[in-house]
């Protein structure tokens, strides 16, 4: 399967034509013939995202009774990817869940375009695509059924929804796996299906938890390419990873933010002896 005409790993995709084998119409077990996209480029490549800045001020996160990290600050501009490094258990996944608004920070503030997440919890609801460690896919359903559900659930039913899904299938090379139920796939293939979910609806902020695990070299390159495109459109991304990914944007080593013995953030008002 040719990896498509994309020239190697381009860091800054720019909206150039990324027709990865788009000219081949997809016969899918006689069940459905996917129409060939008209211009070959992924349709969402054209509309850039509205300008949005993600910032974290003095963030602290608690897991059970332990403080995982505290005093964490960062700012993420459009077109940048924040890479989180740090040993296991240093809170990379916890930070991603904080940014997604799934769990509240122990202290500190997350701002999206200056607006505090704690005040309007639903602020990020339609702005975020969260690809966590567990892949949000149903084992009993086939690849196509999984993607179709997410495409119709996340999408607004517009005509380009079909094209978005088809482009996603192309970018991740899932053309031949569509009819296979998920439980029959390898973890690498499943990861690609989960990453394909990112393309099903245009969302500015991607939160990826170790996206490169279980991917082979070729698909890691495709992922970088994908991310490059997303950033080029003014999108943002936060990645928890162990590999040094060559992406524009700040890097953050969470190990530096683990609490010292008497972490100030932990002296909650509960225990000042009045």
């Amino acid at each position: 399967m040719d990896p498509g005409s994309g020239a190697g790993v381009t860091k800054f995709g720019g909206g150039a034509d990324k027709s990865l084998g788009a000219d081949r119409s997809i016969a899918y077990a006689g069940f459905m013939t996917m129409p060939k996209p008209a211009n070959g480029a992924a349709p969402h490549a054209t509309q850039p995202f509205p300008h949005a800045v993600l910032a974290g001020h003095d963030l602290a996160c608690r897991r059970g009774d332990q403080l995982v990290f505290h005093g964490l600050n960062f700012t993420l501009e459009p077109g940048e990817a924040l890479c989180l490094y740090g040993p296991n258990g240093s809170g990379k996944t916890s930070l991603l869940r904080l940014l997604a608004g799934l769990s509240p920070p122990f202290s500190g503030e997350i701002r999206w375009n200056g607006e505090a997440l704690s005040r309007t919890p639903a602020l990020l609801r339609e702005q975020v695509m969260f690809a966590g460690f567990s892949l949000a896919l149903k084992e009993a359903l086939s690849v196509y059924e999984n993607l179709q559900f997410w495409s119709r659930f996340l999408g607004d039913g517009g005509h380009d929804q079909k094209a978005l899904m088809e482009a996603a299938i192309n970018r991740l090379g899932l053309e031949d796996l569509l009819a296979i139920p998920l439980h029959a796939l390898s973890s690498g293939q499943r990861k690609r299906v989960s990453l394909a979910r990112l393309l099903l609806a245009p969302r500015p902020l991607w939160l990826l938890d170790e996206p490169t695990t279980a991917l082979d070299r070729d698909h890691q390159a495709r992922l970088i390419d994908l991310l490059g495109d997303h950033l080029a459109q003014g999108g943002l991304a936060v990645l928890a990873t162990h590999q040094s990914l060559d992406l524009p944007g700040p890097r953050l080593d969470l190990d530096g933010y683990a609490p010292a013995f008497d972490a100030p953030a932990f002296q909650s008002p509960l225990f000042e002896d009045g």
Partner: protein
Amino acid sequence: MLRAFFILMMRDIGLSYKQGGAAGLVIAFYAVAISLFPFGVGPDSAILARIAGGVLWIAALLSALLSLDRLFQADYEDGTLDALALGPLPLPLVVLAKALAHWLAMLLPLVILSPLFGLMLHLEAQALPTLFLALLIGTPALSLLGAVAAGLTVAVRRGGALIALLVLPLYIPTLIFGVGAVDAVDGLASVSANLNFLGGLSLMFAVLGPLATAGALRLAME
């Protein structure tokens, strides 16, 4: 928004009839549970007729209970719940969609089969329509209230047994009015009063249930 609600509901219904889902098992359990009573109580049709309403309702309660612990657990474990919470549908509506899917997939078949089992228990013929109507109006409350307990125990190891303790005391009003409607057919009490209460309960839990469940799920996802 409404589109997403409907899509999620259809997916859940589809999943519960796939090989992993429990819809078939729940219907089989309903049948087996009901047919156990004659062995316990004796084949005397007079006794069976008198307790038929109670047997059918209690079997429906237990069948609902059986299928509740996988209501959110499956989605919680494979990360779907996180993705749903970040989707276009607010969490209470996600809960309502899943609860309705649970009702349609698991309890509606029981409601349709209930007159059949009523005959098996010698329930008098003119009580069968009331039985069907009472179950039709009352069982949504079982799914909606059950969803609250399922939500509370989703992050708990072996939460299944806990669901029964949490939700059965709350099922008592539905049980009382449900059986009351069936028994009231012989004219002692008014059928419509019982049915009104049943409908009232289901509507109330349709509003309060998802709010409480959304709170519980947010807790589990923290």
